[in-house]
């Protein structure tokens, strides 16, 4: 790596091959980006003042055009000041170009937790089968982070990214006080995982488990019997929190919720007194 001082490197940005070739401009079903505006924003990345550069990054994030990936990647690899780092990472997340995965993964190992958290969030937005393995591994590694916010973001991101292979790791994280893991368990798990999560009832705060159940109950691909089973598990520990949870669930039911599940939830709501 050579001459990566930020002030010097921005001069190289104008020669971005991606921009020059315009290889992905306006693609991917996104609204077409004005080429001139895009070029101007990339040009502004060379500005000597940070405010202008920051503004340019913001524009590029709004454009969400993959042609900005390479200039932003080079910007990040030049080691910019904090604000620009944060903005550039978020911009890459907005663009969601698989080509940015490598640099974002590098930033999941940054010394500042905030940077790691932003990198994890941005990586999670990239949905491309070509980089799925890389993304999944990065998100799983982020679950091991010593910073609880990074872990929390990673746990949720795994669910959003649909990494069903991470189920054991999510349960381990949940056991190790990463409550956000319950959400992903609820998003990705099957009936066995729902049972396993229910096993934490009485051992962990109900407020940490309910988000997981909420995900299970709102899924259309989750069997009704398993949903009813969850409701029965909640009935066993009937209390105001359970009642509030089920009332809210019934107040905004997911599309296609079966009558069977709805009836069972209503029954449990009825038998739980308002105050215990």
């Amino acid at each position, binding site marked *: *790596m050579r*001459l990566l001082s930020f002030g010097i490197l921005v001069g190289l940005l104008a020669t971005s091959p991606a921009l020059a070739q315009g290889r992905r401009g306006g693609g991917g079903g996104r609204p077409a980006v004005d080429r001139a505006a895009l070029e101007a924003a990339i040009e502004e990345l060379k500005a000597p003042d940070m405010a202008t550069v920051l503004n340019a990054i913001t524009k590029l994030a709004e454009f969400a055009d993959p042609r900005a990936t390479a200039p932003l990647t080079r910007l990040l690899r030049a080691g910019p000041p904090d604000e620009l780092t944060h903005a550039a990472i978020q911009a890459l997340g907005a663009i969601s170009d698989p080509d940015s995965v490598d640099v974002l993964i590098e930033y999941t190992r*940054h010394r500042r937790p905030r940077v790691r958290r932003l990198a994890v969030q941005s990586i999670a937005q990239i949905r491309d089968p070509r980089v799925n393995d890389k993304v999944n591994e990065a998100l799983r590694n982020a679950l091991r982070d010593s910073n609880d916010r990074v872990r929390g973001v990673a746990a949720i991101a795994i669910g959003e990214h649909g990494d069903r292979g991470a189920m054991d790791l999510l349960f381990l994280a949940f056991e190790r006080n990463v409550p956000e893991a319950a959400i992903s368990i609820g998003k990705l798990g099957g009936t066995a995982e729902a049972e396993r999560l229910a096993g934490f009832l009485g051992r962990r705060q109900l407020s940490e488990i309910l988000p997981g159940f909420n995900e299970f109950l709102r899924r259309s691909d989750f069997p009704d019997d398993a949903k009813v089973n969850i409701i029965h598990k909640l009935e066993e520990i009937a209390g105001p929190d359970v009642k509030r949870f089920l009332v809210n669930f019934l107040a905004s039911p997911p599309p296609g919720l079966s009558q069977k599940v709805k009836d069972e939830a209503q029954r449990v709501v009825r038998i739980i007194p308002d105050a215990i």
Partner: protein
Amino acid sequence: MARPTVMAWRVAAASAVLLAALGCEELFGGVMEPTAFGNLFADNREEDVAKVVARLPAPAPATAPANRLGRPLVAGLRYGTPGVFVFDVSTGTMLWNKEMSVASRPVLTDRAVLVQSGSDVVSLRLEDGSEMWRIETEGMSFFGAAHDEKYAYLTLGVTVSHVGRLIAVNADSGWTSWKIQTTKLFGRPAAAGGLVFVPWERQDISVLDRESQEEIARIRSVDDVYNFVFARPQGVFYGSKGLYRFDGKSFHGTQQDATYYRPPMQGIPGDPELWADAFAEPTGGRNAREKIRFFVAPAFDPAGQSVTLEHDKLFLLYFRFLVAYDAASGAIQWIYRHPDDIEAVSVQPSGVFLVDSPGNLVRVAADTGLPDWRLPIGIDVAAATFDIAGFSPPSQPVGTVGTMRVQLLQVILDQDNRLLPFRQYLIAKLAQLPEPEVTRDILDVYAQRTSPQALKDAARAALASRAQGAEHLIGALDTHTDYLMNTQAPPMGVVAQSLVAMQARAAVTGLVAHLLDPETPLEDLQEVAQALVDLGDASLISTFESYLTLYHADSAFSQNPNALNVLADGLLKYGGEEERRFLDNLVASTYTLPALKAHIQKRYDEIEQARLAAEEAARLAAEAAAAGTVSAVQEVLPQTLSREQVGQAMTANAALIAPCVQAKMQRSPTLSQVRMVFRLSNTGQASDLSVLPSDDAEFTACLSEALSQIQFPRFLALSQRAQFTIDIATPEPPPGTAPGTPPPGPGTPPTPILPGTPIVPTGPVGPVAPPPPPPGVPGAGTTSVPVAPLPPPPPPPGVPGAGTVPVTPLPPPPPPPGVPGTGTVPVTPVAPPPPPPGVPGATGTGAATTPTTPGAGTPPPPVANPDEYPDVLPPE
């Protein structure tokens, strides 16, 4: 007032006759003019002491119990329901067990057990516990008693008002024969040969004739305190931290001239007493003070001219642990871990007997530390005292003897939090063992989640002192902090330092991984970076550049840019023009952290100075060559400073450093070692100090300030790293070391360097210096260097002082005998020695990178050895 009747007069007259017949001293007892303990009595008179010695019985071995029953007995206090008991050890039967309130530990005499009960000292008959007599303490504290065949001698007193009372009581009748009361505080007395030995005010011991009650001799310490005196068949002994034999030399009043033994161990937590303090008021319950102390027994010396210990060992009780120390070397011989608290210990020729809280009598073999005999007393015990001389039950050892490493580890890993200071102390002992696995053990102690922080700190310090086991450190680098797996990286700061000291170049890959690991604490990152610079090579250039690129403008390093600075140094060390341009760009960048910019710029300035110096040296060399002489500069200035030269400079300025260390020791009494790593410029200025322990900013600042005032000798290279270790836990040898065996490792036997100052420069090893050769090998970097008194001595001949560069050839400095390039500076004590309690002695050695001073006539160019840290950039 009523007039006495005739009958009364008759009774009085008859009584007077009777008194005369009985011996009036016992009935009138008590009213004496205190001629003893007077201020005018001359102390330390040789003829007085000789009279006492002449009256003492000849030394004899203790072969049988001293009590009249002739049976081995243990007298003790019950725990729970208060009471006193006497247990016959030979039969395993309780002689008696009496419920009563007790306010003192029991004193076992030849015919009774003496205890304080309420406001009385009560004598309980040995056979059945019946009360023989009682003496009113009149509100005073009971300090203890001694006895002979005629009297029991009791000392009472009031500590606050310094009132002391000595009472001689007929041992059978309890009648007070005489008593003396003064304004001096008396300690527990001793009796032998018709004499009473009374310690007072912790400085004097008066010897009284029991019949005349007159003081016939007095010894007074002029360089010690006297905390106890006791009499045994082997002789009369006294002392405080050490043990004196009362003999014809006692009149000197000094340690050196008396027959004296002082245990060599230092730094034991809790400052354990060698013998029970005679001035401490005995308590009637379990007492932490009694659970941290030594137990010893004087060995029989027919000539009575020495102080030797039974088994040649001291036995330290630390709650549940019994530690045997070699009396000569102070090395730990074994550690016995008992399941319960130990309430009393007695050292006998057949072994070490103890009584534990649940009431078990156990004997531990003195040579192995294995329990080999056990007898239950049957009641919970609060305190006990032994009279079991000659008792030797058959030995039935239980268990096997573990290695010293295993024994130490068992204690270190013990979860009893009362033992934490002792566990810290033992970690330092463990670190002195030569087995490579010890390095792994210490890392494991550090990594244990249950280890208290204080223990982790001790482990860090211990690790820093290791010279063996690099492979275990390298293996430990595979462990990273992982929240999910609940793993913790090793203490990378100290691991990195140790790897450098061990020259473990195989560690580079693992170190890179920890450099890039965001979990590596910032304070450790500098050491990791430094280790990479020290152990790595040019293949690391891209790693250094990537890291500098990523973080040169990042706030992650805004508070502490040291790691980045070190990596920039690494680029200068291994890189060329391309890397120089890379650094130029960093300096030019608007966003680069100011401290990093300043550091790079500073290095540039140093490089320029070195270039100029090299040019000057070359010019002088050319002139000398032209004139047919040897370059003055080449002959005088070394390429870098040797470890000895660094050590000399440090020890010569010990007075600057001592206050910092002493202040730190007050804040951290268990401090065992201080490690300083710093950069030396070729003008002799130190900078960039890092200190272990690193958790005390005040300490670091103090040392930095002190270091900045030290003028080191100049040298030719641009700069060099130097390391200096202050070992506070010495001079105690490592555990298991046989008497007379030199300690392993690079250190030579420590020597005090500054009276009262526990500073020990030990074997610093420059980061790129090879492991020091064994002691005695010329050039070894570990040599005792006594610290010179204030003011510091001038630079040695031939070594240029600050700012002075001779221009005429000078002969090289004459090396002192034995070690080239090092020497021992004669020391004149600048302060009286007595270290504070628990403050160990001070010794050490100093070192730096191996000197590369060219020989006479060697062509000059001061080009750095590329394998060494002191580095000069290639010419641009």
